[in-house]
């Protein structure tokens, strides 16, 4: 299935990736190849196979409900570009 440039742009936008115009054709071809591989796999009859939720066939180990983290705001906020009054500061957005 051929992939259009607009589809590449759309998918890149969903992942917030900036893609140069000249790279578009290459990505379109890569994606088309991946889909071709998927199509090939879909030819296999899997009606008798249980869906696999996780590659390791294990069950989740659960955690007891207790608080074992302390306040490390100061450490964490050292890498933030901007903070104020304990908040992380980002450019204004209003929905």
């Amino acid at each position, binding site marked *: 299935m051929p992939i259009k440039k607009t589809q590449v742009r759309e998918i890149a936008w*969903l992942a*917030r990736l900036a893609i140069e115009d000249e790279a578009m054709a290459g990505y379109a071809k890569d994606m088309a190849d991946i889909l071709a591989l998927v199509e090939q796999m879909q030819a296999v009859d899997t009606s008798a196979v249980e869906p696999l*939720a*996780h*590659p*390791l066939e*294990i*069950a*989740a*180990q*659960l*955690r*007891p*409900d*207790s*608080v*074992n*983290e302390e*306040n*490390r*705001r100061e450490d*964490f*906020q050292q890498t933030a570009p*901007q903070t*104020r*009054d*304990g*908040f*992380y*500061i*980002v*450019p*204004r*957005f*209003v*929905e």
Partner: protein
Amino acid sequence: MKWESVIGLELHVQLATRSKIFSGAANRFGESPNTLACAVDLGLPGVLPVANEEVIRMAVMFGLAVDASIAGQSVFARKNYFYPDLPKGYQISQYELPIVSAGRVQIQVDGTTREIGITRAHLEEDAGKSVHEGFTGSTGIDLNRAGAPLIEIVSEPDLRSAGEAVALMKKIHALVRYLEISDGNMQEGSFRCDANVSIRPAGESGLGTRTETKNINSFRFVEQAINYEIDRQIGLVEAGQEVIQETRLFDPDRNETRPMRGKEEANDYRYFPDPDLPPVVIDNDYIESVRRQLPELPEQKQQRFMETYGLSEYDSSYLVANRETADYYEAAVVAAPEQPKLVANTVMGVLSASLNRENLDIKDSKVSADKVGNLVIRIADGTISNKIGKQVFESLWEGGGDVDDIIEKQGLKQVTDSSEIGRLVDEVIAGNEAQVQQYRNAAPEKRGKMIGYFVGQVMKKSKGKANPKQVNLLLAEKLEK
């Protein structure tokens, strides 16, 4: 044309755990920003989420309470989108295999009972909070709420009016509080509602285009938002226009819904199973162990109240509407075991009026349940009249103290001494010659109404303490002479 509305709700309920759903940070409201956000909540590289067992227990408990099926294997999935209060760029949620599916609850509206389907309930983490106020040209992000556990409960589009939607919301609200899995605090955002609304010509079975109104945080607003949406959609269709499928926000100040800006592009969340989290496996033994922890649910409690205390359907449904009221009622009945009906009247009457007046929760009542019981005993044994009972209640409410002390100190004991009442009756007869004359000249069938005037006078003279029955009898006797 006659229209029918089709409504489904999505309720986001914050679970009352100590720690977050995937981290050991505290799950609390109202702390200083970002002091409860650990490396997992911040989505820092290299961290690994681990699911909280209490969150699983609470979800299973909810599922059992709505008669749903519990998934033997349920899977966490990543819901991918970018937003400043979602540091990882995805929310851990559930998609294909939610923990709870295919349940049902009953709602009562205008005396009719209807069964509403619960499509599913899935677990997910909450996002952080964006604060715009107090920041110019920028936005503050508080991630204390990031990773707080939520259960999202999705109903079937079985609701046909705003009233039914509110009934369902109240039902679920009461249920999660009975189960003690959430505090249900709407001001703090622990219980939020999205409403999906569409319309169709009455009698048709297809579905019209729906809109989703998001984040409505009170029962009243849900009713207003849905009614606004129904009217808006009917207006559009009758004017030959089309309803557009979109997400809207309710503005309570203007009592209207508006499309959300900046969300024009169709959402494409690209869900996939979260590789960090293996499936949660739940076996039957576990389900049965949770079932044994289920408390008495509102419908069972109501049935018991009707059978044990002889209460009406109305009284019992009022008292079980929330667990605190039901507990208070039963504690008061312990103090006055012979008078369950009178206790119910007092709780639903003077107590609830006082709570409403001061906007208090029943758990913060200024009069304790055992005092309500003591008060009821004194009304029942004739020590005080019903009317004086209200006065004693007000004294308890304002100044605390003991029922018998208040009756004693304020001299409120009902006067049952017939010579004392007789004296008051004589005074009233002597002081109202004209009215007495009128009474005696009136036809006997008219006298019944006229005697009320004299009763009122006697009661006034006794400051409400005379036994009204005795007053009536004595008056009738003396006026005949």
